[in-house]
Each structure stands twice: as structure tokens, then as C-alpha cells.
């Protein structure tokens, strides 16, 4: 009986999201993006003032003002979007999932609205290249270093039939001893620091470490708490960062694939 039901439901509604559609998709994450044409000094100032974290700041360089958006610190509160009069919008796509730490930072010249693109940020995002990774095997060990469990909810979601992580040959494994990649969430609490170090040591080399979420990237909303020892890259070496609070399943998947692509 179960099989009848499931067969009928699976045939009536196809839910698997194609890889082209998934890559870099940030919808529902509430992460901000900038519409350079609408950016003014006044709006940039208002948005930076509204930001409750250090994600959005103004910097003076060579007599010009730059708007700096550091996704590592962004807790996706959406306040810059509310204050930004159209110049700040909810990101549809985010290229930086899986980037290095400096790749999480974007800059705009406030006067001209032009984005200042660093070479490091450029990432190859073609679905064709990602497809070339298909069929390889990657074993991931997920480590919760004190997350709020929001990131876990999304990591679990990438295994659901919409995202189907396993189609990329990627599996979650039960022990760090079987893992190629550690996917680490949370700000690294004081009480978890030792377990994180031990898990890293128990993972055979070569190994990749990916920091997940605002907490993983920078400590997020918990940065500076007396009860945290992180962020993660203060405890163990990190190869890539996936920002978000929490990152959506599409962002997680893109980030994992990009770290893999960059390191293969």
C-alpha cells in the first residue's frame, strides 16, 4: 500500500530541482544584495546605520567612500533592505557560497555605485563544471559546534527529494574517520572547542573544512559572547565559507560544490 501511495505521488508531482536552478540560488535566505544604480551616499549611510552587526560598513579609501558588505557577519535580518529604499534587495543569487573569507566581502564605490571587484571573488559557477564533478564521491561529516540548530535543519533539508544531495555522489557519514569534508556549524562554544579540535584531528588528510552559517563564518549573532571560543577559523583551518542565517539548502549545496571545485 505504501508503495502505491508513494508511486502515485512521485509520478504526479516531480520535485527534484535541476542543478542549473539550484546553483547560487539564495531565495528565502533574506541575504542582501545591492542595486548599484540606486545607491546613494545617503542610502548607504542609512543602511549601514540600520545594520545590527558589522556586516555593512562605510570605509574611506583614497578620499572616496566605499560601501563594504561582509557576508560573513550578516545575520540576514533584512533591516538594510527595509532601510535601503530599493538600493538593497533580497539576493536572488549569491556567488560567494563556498568562497574564501576575503571572497565573502563585496565593495561598492558609493559615489559611482560601481562594484569594486577583486580577482579573488570571481568564481567559476558554470553548471557544466559542476556537472563534471558528478559521479565522484565525497563523504561529509557534519559537526555542530554550538549552532542554534537552524543550520542543521537546512543541512538535513539538502538530503530531501527536492535537493537530493546524493545525486552528486555526496553522502553524510557517521564518523570523522570516514570523512573527506567537515561541515561545521555554530560559533564554537567554549564547551565544544575541544571536541572540534579532536574531530579535526580524527579526520584523515587530505581533508576539507567548510564553515557554515553566520555563526561558522564569524560567530554571527553570538560573536564576542563570553561562552564562545570561536569563530571556527580561530580553532582549526577552514577551506571555504557558506554565509547565511541559516544558508538555504541551495546555498549549502552550491557552497559544498564550489569548495570541491576550487580544491580539485
Amino acid at each position, binding site marked *: *500500500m*505504501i*508503495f502505491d*501511495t*508513494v508511486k502515485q*505521488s512521485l509520478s504526479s508531482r516531480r*520535485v527534484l530541482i535541476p542543478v542549473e536552478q539550484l546553483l547560487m540560488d539564495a*531565495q*528565502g*535566505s*533574506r541575504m542582501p544584495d545591492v542595486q548599484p544604480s540606486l545607491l546613494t551616499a545617503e542610502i548607504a549611510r542609512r543602511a549601514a546605520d540600520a545594520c*545590527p552587526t558589522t556586516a555593512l560598513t562605510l570605509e574611506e579609501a583614497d578620499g572616496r567612500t566605499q560601501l563594504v558588505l561582509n557576508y560573513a557577519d550578516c*545575520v*540576514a*535580518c*533584512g533591516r538594510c533592505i*527595509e532601510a535601503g529604499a530599493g538600493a538593497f534587495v*533580497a539576493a536572488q543569487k549569491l556567488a560567494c557560497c563556498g568562497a574564501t573569507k576575503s571572497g565573502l566581502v563585496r565593495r561598492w564605490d558609493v559615489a559611482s555605485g560601481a562594484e569594486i571587484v577583486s580577482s579573488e571573488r570571481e568564481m567559476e559557477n558554470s553548471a557544466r563544471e559542476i556537472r563534471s564533478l558528478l559521479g565522484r564521491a565525497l563523504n561529509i561529516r*557534519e*559537526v*555542530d*559546534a*554550538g*549552532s*542554534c*540548530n*537552524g*543550520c*542543521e*535543519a*537546512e543541512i*538535513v*533539508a539538502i*538530503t*530531501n*527529494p*527536492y535537493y537530493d544531495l546524493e545525486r552528486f555522489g555526496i553522502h*553524510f557519514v*557517521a*564518523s*570523522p574517520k570516514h570523512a573527506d569534508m567537515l561541515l561545521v556549524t*555554530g*560559533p564554537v*562554544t*567554549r*564547551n*565544544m572547542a*575541544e*571536541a572540534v579540535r579532536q*574531530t579535526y584531528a580524527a579526520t584523515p588528510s587530505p581533508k576539507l573544512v567548510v564553515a557554515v552559517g553566520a555563526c561558522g563564518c564569524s560567530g*554571527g*549573532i*553570538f560573536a564576542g*559572547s*563570553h*561562552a*564562545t571560543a570561536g569563530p571556527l577559523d580561530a580553532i582549526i583551518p577552514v577551506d571555504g565559507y557558506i554565509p547565511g*542565517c*541559516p544558508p*538555504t539548502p541551495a546555498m549549502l549545496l552550491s557552497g559544498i560544490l564550489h569548495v570541491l571545485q576550487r580544491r580539485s
Partner: protein
Amino acid sequence: MNAILAQSHETTDPLKLLHRPGVRLVSIFGSLDEDGSRRVHYAVDIDNRQYRVVSIAGEGPIASATPITPAAAWYERELHDQYGVAIEGHPDLRPLLFHENWAEGVHPMTAGFEKVPAGTRTPYRFLKVEGEGVCEVPVGPVHAGIIEPGHFRFSIVGDTVLNLELRHFYTHKGTEKLFENMPIADGCLIAESVSGDNCFAHAVAYSQAMENSFGVAVPARGRALRLIGLELERMMAHIADVGALCGDVGFTVPAAYTARIKESLLLASTRFFRTRFWRGVAVPGGVTIDLAAVDAAELQRIVAEAARDFAELAKIILETPSVQNRFESTGVLSRDVARDLAVVGPVTRASGIKIDVRRDHPYGRYREFATEIAHHSQGDVLARARIRIDETAISARLIADTLREMPTGAIRTSISADASAEGFSAVESPRGELFYWVRVRNGRIARCHIKSPSFQNWPALPLAMPGNIIADFPLINKSFNLSYSGCDR
């Protein structure tokens, strides 16, 4: 009614109050007076009808409430860790929040605390079960699945569990301290990060506590939208829980199917509210995102479809003999234990105790009708699964009823940001009673205490274990589905 009754400097003896029949402990927590001296607050629920908060000075030693109600044990250990309050007559004041890499004598919530000094403390003493053939099995903090960290120490004979001791707080983030001195609007960001899968319930509980403190009424449409968010969150949590239970007994097809139903609701949230988990939606004074009139029918259709698919699936699950075999009479939490430990939420309703904040202390939109409560009495894994199945259907009906009669008008009102006030609020989160107590001084948060249902319910899990085989632990644990981060904060 929820809140309004905050009387924080009342003279009643809290221990006498706890002795009275019909009084359930909600929380015990500390705060600092303006001069930095400590105060201890006792929140109770009287006859499932009225919350009351009573407080006493905390500078001298206070008498422990644990001999009166074991539900007080962890609260007093936390109070002792956070504030260094001397508690007389407590049977077990081992550190709860702080592990070995915290220096002795640290009390982060006291006046003048700046940072944790370097140093360590003596290793934690686990209880020792002795006797012929008794073995100890330590598990965690890092577990095999994608779950949060915590430590379980089993004492077993053969396969059978004699005793389980928990050691948690690996995810302790000093959250309550982080609220200090924040503007009230920013407190939401922290509340949302206490337990991510219940983030909307936390944001609403926090916001309501502020609204109650300042006497602000949320517009009717804002209240309706909050109900929709709260019930969607409950549906997603319960559907995922039932799926996880199936996964634990190797029934993977329905497990994948539940994941699919849950995702359909997350995608609907993205589509209509631009957020998967409703983060950033609840704020003191109302909500930030409205539902477009044209979308209401489509949202209703998706919710109804999810509820129908899940009900069909649940029927199949419950009729499967291998599931019945594993779920039935496994991990029984007796009614008496649930009562003694003041257990809340679906877990207590599965053990025959009919409490639910939505009905007993209605808030927001729930004031306008009597919420139907599911309950079962066997207290086993099966009863806890059934509760979630029944409640998912009820939630879908509540959403449908609300969408059918959506009030029009504003979704949000402003809240004065520079005044001083204090108050509390409770919300029935997917895991049960969630209680926030806040104090604001000149527009800044002076104290925010979070009683999470998981903090309350974790101590009950070990009491559902003895006599079960250790191989059933993951299933029993999953049937409680408690949040580690929500507990550890």
C-alpha cells in the same frame, strides 16, 4: 490571560506557593536590581489558568525548592552557575552550564563580570551505578547523525538500561547575557537564534513579552499572521519528527516522504513571506511581512495538501506492524513523572496531562477561540507520535480558519523604545511552553530570561529509559525531540 499579571516584588513565600496543589513550576531565574544585588524569581502556573511571578532577595542563602518539586533542580543549578546564589538544601549543585575549561567561581550574570579568566575546574562527577555485570556506555558529545551535541552516559546490564545520566550544555552560548544592554528591537535577533527550528515561536514569545511590558496591542491582522507562522512552524516540526521516528526504525520511504511534505511548506513560506523559517517576521509590535490578498487561497491550498498527504502517510505508518512493534510500550514516561518534573508540550500531552499554553493562557489570536488539544495517555513512543500526528491536523485547521477570516488593516504598531518596564509572556512552541521574562531600563534590555521547553523536559528523558534496551535509545530520544541549543542557550 497571558502576562499582565507580572507582580515581581510580591511578598508571597515562593516555597509555600510551590507546596500548594495545582501549582506547576514554570521557571526559576535570577536578575540584578539597579544596585547590582541579586534577586530570584519564581514563575508558576496556578491551576493551568494563571501565571504568577514571585521574587525574593538573592544576596543571602536561599532555601532550595528542589526538595518540594524535583522540577526545580536544573533551574537552581543554573541560577547557582549564572549568579552564584547560595542555595541551601539542594541535593546536587554540580555545575550545569560550565564544563572543565571554565575557571572555578565564574558567575557571568553577576555585576562587574567582564570575561572568563583562564583556568579549569575539577572534572565532572558522573553518578556511579555499581553491581555485578554493570557496564558504562558513554555516548557523545558528537553523535553519528546530523544532530546537536550532548553527552549521554548509560549504565547497562546486558542490553538493558539501568540508568541514564545526561550531561549537556555543550552548545551553551551565554545567550541570556547577550541580551544585556541591547535595544529592544535587536533582542529579536537573539531570540530567533535560541532554537532555530522553533525560531518563530521564540521571536513571538520575546515580542509578546515586550508588548505585555509596555501595554502595546498588536493589530488584528498582525495577530492572525503570527498564528499562521506559529502553526506552520508546528506542522513542520511535527511532520519532521514523525519522519525521523520512521527513519529510526528503518522505515525510510515514509521518512523521505515527510521530508518532502515539510519542504513544500518551507517553499510556500519562501514564496509568500520571502523567508523559509519566518526569521525577521515577528518584532515587538507586530510582524514585518504581510500576506498578499491574492496569495491567501494558494497558501491555504498548499497547507491543506500537506495536511492531507501527511494524514494519509501517518495512517500507513501507524498501521505498519513493524512500526507498531517498535513504538508501542517503548520509552514510557509515566503521568506521575511527567507531573513531578513539570514536563510540557507534546511529551506531557502524550502522558495524559492536558496542558497547552494556547488553551490555558491564550495569547494573540488564540484569545478568540478555544484551541482544541490532542492528548493520549500511554506515554510511550507511539503516543508521542500520535500526538504529533493529531496536532498537525489541528494546526492545519487553525491556519485554514484564520486564512478564511483574515482581518484587514495594519500588521504592526510602534512600541516606545526609551521607557522602563518589565513583564513576561508564554507561547506554546512546537516543543511546549516557552516563557520569556524581560526587564527594560531606559529602552535597553536589562534582563531577558528564556525558559525553554527543552530545558524543562530533558531531565524527564532518563526516566523513560530504565528497562528499555539501549538500542531503543535513539528512537526514544527522537520521540521526545528536545532541542539542545534551546536547553543550553
